[in-house]
């Protein structure tokens, strides 16, 4: 295996992500190769440099507030912490009860209609005109 092939494995080795057998071969190579040792040193410093570059970065004080405001969670939280007023559920209950009472009242207090008289048999002297008989013209009064 040439140095170039080992170089490609240095990164995975540094991260502890190289399979054991390949790691053992690389370690053996590192013992005898100053070039790869230098490469290894150079690559291992990169993570530290990157972390150092962001270590002084400070989060704005209102970062959380801005996120929470954006998701609407901030208001929910403060609302939850207050005692929940009972006004709203009681009002809803009252409206439902009133509606029920109204319905019951409407049902039981419907005006009693007088009984409809049964149809009387036709008067004795009246004989209905047979079907198809000509209608008599109405006289003007």
């Amino acid at each position, binding site marked *: 295996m040439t140095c170039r092939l080992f*170089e*490609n*494995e*240095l*990164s*995975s080795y540094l*991260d502890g*992500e190289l399979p054991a057998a390949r790691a053992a071969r690389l370690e053996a190579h590192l013992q005898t190769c100053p070039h790869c040792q230098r490469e290894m040193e*150079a*690559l291992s410093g*990169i*993570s530290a*440099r*990157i*972390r*150092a*570059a*962001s270590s*002084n*970065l*400070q*989060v*704005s004080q209102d*970062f*959380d507030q*801005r*996120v*929470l405001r*954006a*998701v609407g*969670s*901030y208001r*929910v*939280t403060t609302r*939850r912490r207050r005692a929940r007023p009972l006004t709203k559920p009681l009002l809803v209950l009252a409206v439902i009860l009133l509606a029920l009472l109204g319905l019951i009242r409407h049902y039981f207090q419907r005006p009693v209609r007088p009984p409809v008289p049964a149809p009387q048999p036709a008067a004795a002297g009246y004989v209905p005109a047979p079907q198809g008989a000509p209608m008599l013209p109405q006289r003007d009064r």
Partner: protein
Amino acid sequence: MEEAAGPRVLSQDAYLASATDEELVAACVDGTPEAFRELLSRYRKSALNLAYQMLGNGEDAEDAAQEAFVRVFQAVPRFRGQAAFSTWLYRIVTNLCLARMRRRRGDVDLETLGEPKAADSPSQQVTEGLLTRQVLQEMSPTLRAVLLLRVEGGLSYREMAEALGVPLGTVRSRLSKARIQFRKLWRQFSQSEAS
């Protein structure tokens, strides 16, 4: 008088502080806003660091990190927990940063790099910090993303493969290329600084 021995009841804050990420995600889904606040408190710094190193600008980084948390909040009911919460969050941060970089077409130079709000730092450290950010900005976005997910996010190769939606072998080779490119650019910029 002896106190009656009973189960110790944790306050909500203590419970949330000791909960795992998965438990906090579940609590978020159940509508506990404090669980989201705890996740925010755990990951705000690392999300911001990742965004900052990706974008090289403090203001943009804060915007991207905030947008990422908002997206997390909105999408948390659909989060199935196949990946770790951190992997998911870093993927969102990375994608948002890549989208921002595409929009501004990578026209970042040293003058436009926002200074981090740093406490008094030794000048050497400031110079190295600037150089690091300059190098990162010069790197190809995909290589930068994989390097930062590893260094800032602390993701394993498998987690990075999930976050970036690429095979494990691609992560391995990209990371190797990223380190080699970083070292090459570092040398280049160090020499030009010195001359």
